[in-house]
């Protein structure tokens, strides 16, 4: 049957073939019909809420009140507010530290996983687990591990004689920040390791063999072959993770609720506290909109990279 069709195709003239291919790829009404559900979903539940969020941020809307236009008043008030400036600082520290840890450890782990021969599937499977289980639930166990009285971490440190008193992990502002960074790293590391591993696998073996025969040692091979060839994957992973680390809500909300003394608030948790708990929807929307420029930047860079990759192909 298929052969017949091929024969049919071959028998037609060029003009007809062109019309045929036009018929095959140029069916605009069908394309629109297929896209319609996704289009309207994005329009009503993403684009419209986004516009609404812009309006809220320019108004003094509160829960149950539409509010009046107040211009950039919300943003001006935020920039003067000590808590917001603290949130801004926290977000930068949290994102920078977590991303650095995930990148460095993820790279090291990917290089190790790459060389595994025995128990490969088992070890990879175990490594990926923290990324799969529900974050809100796995963060509960971290909370329990850092609980002031019965902390298993403190128990271990004391029994190893590294410390002689309980460390106040969550009540201390700086240690609390350390803890949320640690948990974010725990959850995000598998994504880095597994994705970078896929990038490593894609590097042709001949490259390494050629470099080795030219006398390059393991460190030379890493810097001059692995890193440059892994750069596109590395960039995508870091950018992607940058958005979702900066926008993190679950870990901070479950572990510290932004405390102690607002020292671990991120945009998402502070926006939640302002918009829903205090009812200041305008202010809350303005806080969450601070995520938007970062998002735009990442989208811009990623699209440019995708286009560049497409032209090289």
């Amino acid at each position, binding site marked *: 049957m298929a052969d017949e069709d091929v024969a049919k195709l071959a028998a037609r003239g060029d003009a007809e073939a062109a019309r045929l291919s036009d018929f095959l790829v140029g069916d605009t009404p069908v394309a629109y019909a297929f896209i319609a559900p*996704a289009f309207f979903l994005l329009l009503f539940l993403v684009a419209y*809420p986004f516009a609404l969020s812009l309006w809220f941020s320019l108004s003094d809307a509160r829960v149950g009140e539409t509010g009046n236009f107040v211009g950039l008043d919300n943003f001006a008030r935020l920039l003067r507010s000590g808590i917001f400036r603290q949130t801004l600082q926290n977000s930068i520290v949290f994102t920078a530290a977590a991303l650095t840890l995930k990148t460095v450890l993820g790279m090291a782990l990917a290089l190790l996983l790459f060389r595994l021969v025995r128990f490969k599937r088992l070890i990879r499977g175990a490594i990926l687990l923290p990324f799969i*289980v529900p974050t809100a639930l796995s963060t509960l166990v971290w909370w329990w591990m850092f609980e002031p009285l019965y902390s298993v971490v403190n*128990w271990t440190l004391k029994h190893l004689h590294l410390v002689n008193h309980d460390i106040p992990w969550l009540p201390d502002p700086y240690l609390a920040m350390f803890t949320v960074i640690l948990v974010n790293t725990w959850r995000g*590391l598998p994504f880095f390791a597994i994705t970078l591993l896929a990038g490593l696998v894609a590097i042709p073996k001949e490259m390494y063999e050629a470099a080795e025969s030219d006398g390059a040692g393991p460190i030379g091979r890493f810097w001059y072959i692995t890193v440059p060839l892994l750069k596109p994957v590395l960039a995508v992973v870091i950018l992607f993770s940058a958005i979702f680390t900066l*926008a*993190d809500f679950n870990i901070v909300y479950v572990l510290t609720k932004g405390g102690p003394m607002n020292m671990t608030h991120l945009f998402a948790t502070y*926006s939640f506290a302002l918009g829903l708990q205090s009812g200041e929807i305008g202010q809350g929307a303005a806080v969450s909109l601070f995520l938007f420029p970062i998002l735009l930047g990442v989208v811009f860079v990623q699209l440019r990279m995708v286009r560049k990759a497409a032209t090289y192909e």
Partner: protein
Amino acid sequence: MNSVRRIRPLFTLYLPVMPFVLFALFPLYFMVVTSFKKNAELYDVNSVPFLIKRGVTLGHYQLLSQDTLFWSWFVNSLIVSVAATVISVVIGILAAYPLARLRFPGGDSFGVAIFVTYLVPPSLLFLPLSTVVNRLGLSDSLWALVVTYPTFLVPFCTWLLLGYFRTVPKEIEECAMLDGCSRLQTLVRILLPVAVPGVICAALFAFTLSWNEFLYALVFVSPAELKTMTVGVFSELIRGDIYYWGGLMAGACIGSLPIVVAYVFFLDYYVSGLTAGAVK
């Protein structure tokens, strides 16, 4: 010489990997251990926290079943996740097909819009979305979640399936169309059977993301009996300053179980879905 070669990886490879495995697994192990430990041992500062020495108990699980709405939360999560997954995969398949196969005005822009939405974190839109959900009269019902989860699931499914569809040669479809099949028939009978791995992958991820979702479920639904798993365990098991750590951990274990089971069976799909976005 030979034995040195065989032993060396033990020190340069398996030994360095161990801390990573321990770091990944210890919290999950500790979750399970805590959920089976009796309170007397749990709250004894002199006992070894890593082990259960004074007998295993199912008490925390019993407390969860009898004194809380745990199983309602479980069922709610299941309903919402299955519904949101089915809706999103269907919409995703329909949207990915023209993007992968057809040329039409606005096609590129729509592709970019899907990609941008894929990157929008839920924490950017939860405030205005809660207003929208309110106006639609959906707040405090599971519908609020069934309707809003597709906002992040559809872009993900579309993006993933788009990649899969592009790898399938289109000649067979063209033949089918010349034989008089409609677009929909071609999609359902010719393309989908070949793209089954992609569809499974999209469905698995959509289910996992729905099951794990926390922020929308926390904001849009407040009656205790309508909460999902993640929110219920977190907000209903902590009463004031009293923590039922055993019960909390039991809830976390059962709440993670469906995902872990799916994960064990479909590990390779998870890995390919995870890397689909980044390595192309």
